[in-house]
């Protein structure tokens, strides 16, 4: 299964995503430059963390206009799996591929910390390899990760089982402890914590592999 890692000029977790997939998961990964109009035949797309175009405006506000995002939109519309991590989540929200918004952490500071996530649904290509309710340890590293949406949207996400992960101890003030959400079709996941930073014991946790292994199970072209 071939992963594409989108590289915006200010992406800084692109190498980490590539390393997690290529070395720790053992699947090929390639970089896709932000002005590329196509995704060159990858099976899954990762929007990595970072500061896409500096993010001096709202995070992701400029990235949604980049050429590659048109290709990502089409890829998602065709059912291709898209994983947005941290800044990638912010971009997906700005691009309208996921509902709600991500605003500054409640304490108004950047927070880098390991958190615990509760897996809320197994009904997605990103979580199918998890145990029901499985607690996953992985780090967050963001200044603007407080998830907000109107009550109706939050109710809808819950009713449609589209909250993939919630924080066990809410670090940033996210409404209803939301850490990661799915689109209606369940092929796009945005999450603030970094699964790619939890893919081997030396990183302190391997729990992030659950997300990547689920993807492989669901989408590997040769899988039965």
């Amino acid at each position: 299964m071939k992963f594409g890692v989108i590289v915006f000029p200010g992406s800084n977790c692109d190498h980490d995503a590539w390393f997690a997939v290529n070395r720790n998961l053992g699947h090929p990964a390639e970089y896709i430059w932000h002005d590329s109009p196509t995704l060159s035949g990858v099976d899954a797309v990762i929007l990595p963390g970072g500061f896409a175009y500096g993010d001096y405006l709202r995070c992701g506000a400029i990235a949604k206009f980049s050429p590659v995002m048109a290709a990502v939109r089409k890829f998602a519309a065709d059912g291709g799996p898209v994983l947005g991590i941290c800044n990638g989540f912010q971009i997906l929200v700005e691009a309208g591929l996921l509902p709600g918004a991500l605003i500054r952490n409640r304490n108004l500071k950047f927070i880098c910390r390991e958190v615990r996530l509760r897996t809320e649904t197994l009904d997605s290509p990103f979580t199918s390899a998890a145990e029901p309710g499985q607690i996953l340890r992985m780090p967050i590293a963001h200044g603007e990760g407080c998830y907000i949406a109107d009550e109706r949207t939050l109710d809808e996400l819950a009713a449609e089982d589209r909250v993939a992960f919630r924080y066990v101890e809410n670090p940033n003030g996210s409404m209803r402890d939301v850490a990661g959400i799915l689109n209606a079709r369940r092929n796009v996941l945005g999450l603030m914590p970094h699964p790619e930073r939890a893919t081997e014991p030396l990183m302190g946790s391997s729990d992030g592999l659950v997300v990547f292994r689920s993807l492989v199970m669901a989408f590997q072209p040769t899988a039965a």
Partner: protein
Amino acid sequence: MSTVAITPDLVAQHQLAESEYRKIVSILGREPNYTELGIFSVMWSEHCSYKSSRLHLKKLPTRGKLVVQGPGENAGIVDVGGGYVIAFKIESHNHPSFIEPFQGAATGVGGILRDIFTMGARPIAVLDSLRFGPLNDAQAGPRNRRILQGVVAGIAHYGNCFGVPTVGGECVFEPCYNGNPLVNVFALGVAKKDDIFYARAAGIGNPVIYVGAKTGRDGIHGASMASAEFTEESKQKRPNVQVGDPFLEKLLLEACLEAMQTGAIVGIQDMGAAGLTCSTCEMGSRGGTGIEIELDLVPQRETGMTPYEIMLSESQERMLLVAAKGREDEVFQVFRKWGLDAVTIGQVTADGLLRVRQHGQVVAEIPNRELADEAPLYDRPHTESPVRPCPEGTHPSPARELMPPQQALLALLASGDICSKRYIWEQYDYQVRTNTLAGPGADAAIVRIKENGVSIAMSLDGNSRYGYLSPREGAMLAVAESCRNLAAVGALPVAATNCLNFGNPERPEIMGQLVAAIEGLGDACRFFDTPITGGNVSLYNETLGEGIWPTPVIGIVGLMPTAAPVTMDFKAPGRSIILLGGLGNCDETRFGGTQYAKVILKELWGLPPALDMDYEKRVHDAMREIVAAGLAESAHDLSDGGLAVAAAECCLGGVGAALHFESDLSPEFLLFHEGPSRILISTANPDGVAEIAARHAVEAPRVGITMNSALAIRNRDATLVIAKIDSLNAIYEGSLENQLRS
């Protein structure tokens, strides 16, 4: 040519002495014009020329078998095996951080990162050494709190966006930093040994290319500002502080590393202090060449800038490079891809001159070598630091009623220097690049190099209380502690960088501190085999005539095989606890520099703890062998606060300890003396540890056993400490935020 008349007043305003001006005239064979005066003034500022310290810095050891590049380049370089090298250096941004904490600290990070990647190395770690006035200072407290928050946010802003992990550092509070906070930033990068780039302008006729941000009027005379004391008027210098753009720096990083791969780049240097002036003349001087530039070609942010302003601007995120003639397009193509300006502004010449033109007219013409390397050199008068006597009635004295040891321990755990700095380091992305094996809070930070299976351990240390009592011994103790931190995680120290923060060197007692500290550093670094490959000197850290205490900060890097690191937390109950190095000894002359004396007695006297370097080194060797044999479940070096604080810190992970001593030392000396050469270990194999220690002729008494949920310390029949870990944790973790809220 400029028409501004050069008067003695104008020369004085440029902080050039009369003798220095005469030297300029003799170099040029004529009077300088205004632009040339400005150029000389920044290049010959203390910050750029090291004119007070150079003579003494020569005494430092700089060579070693792994050293590829010593001082004199943008960063030192050390071979780490497998075809890879590391480039690293520490720099200060003290003055700007006082005037504008957020941008001052942010651009401090930006500057040192450029020093690293200009050598072809991708930055993989940053550490910062911070010093502020006390947060609860009666007068300066509110300002100190604001400066700390601004500095931390600035470092976070720049490092996080750029994508380099901030993996460690230190933060210390003393009244002497009320008007002079210290912000020292260390950065380390990794490169292939065959892909190192140097800041040399070679090849007559090769194009000189300007890349990165446009030049504005910001930061003019920043280097000179950093070479003067602060006065009441200093706040007016805020426009001298530059504004950083970490996103642009990230683009510059990627573009430079990619352009270097083309093979078309001959030499490259960042524009930091003294901007275009420094980068042109230093590259020319190192290459033995001249450089000719046309200022009309320099990308400018505003109109109507004078040659003086363009040459002295310290706008951030700019680089100067020399490319191979005819291959400019390969370079331009890369920078275009990253959306950056890249313009040929001149060429390398054979005449050794820095020739600056504007509108075709020559506006400055100065020999590169004299400008860059012939700065005045001063052997300033210096006096020995006096011994600070032990005041009458000071500890230990029956006349003085002492705090119960347990209460003292809790007070120390809550004190600014010792308490948890989580509030600070959680604002830093300390994990990006997924190489961080040990991050903030550890004895030494560890990052792995994915390519060659080697990990780099790093530690920054300095103790200005010790430095105040004895600049020489204080510097040696800093080196010893840094090396001990590395030993505690099993790493072998291989090289060092230093940042020397002092007051006004024109005062003999301050100059005496500087000279003694350099000698101490030199002796210790020679002994521990850690050559100093570069660094920074920051003088004139004074406000209204009040200088800081001598604050040499040492950064030592060490090597170890990539593996799960040994950390300080006790791991399981029932394990033996061994005090490698032994209890040590202490008397009242060596107790006045301790944290106990600071926090509990509120005094400072005598001499710093006594250091036996030979014994210290044996402790390190034993420790590394214990780690290599897999015998250390946990390890933590004893430093600030001594034995009791170290033991408490080992318990904070949740597993406690019962310690029992049979010592003649008074409880205060036993628990809180800061004698070096000691590491607290927990192990499942005490005999194995004892055997290794004995072989190195190092004491290794078994002092207790790990247990659940509490810390108990007894000496003979007296219980000195008995505390629940939860309560220790609450005090240790909550203190800094409480102080910031007050």
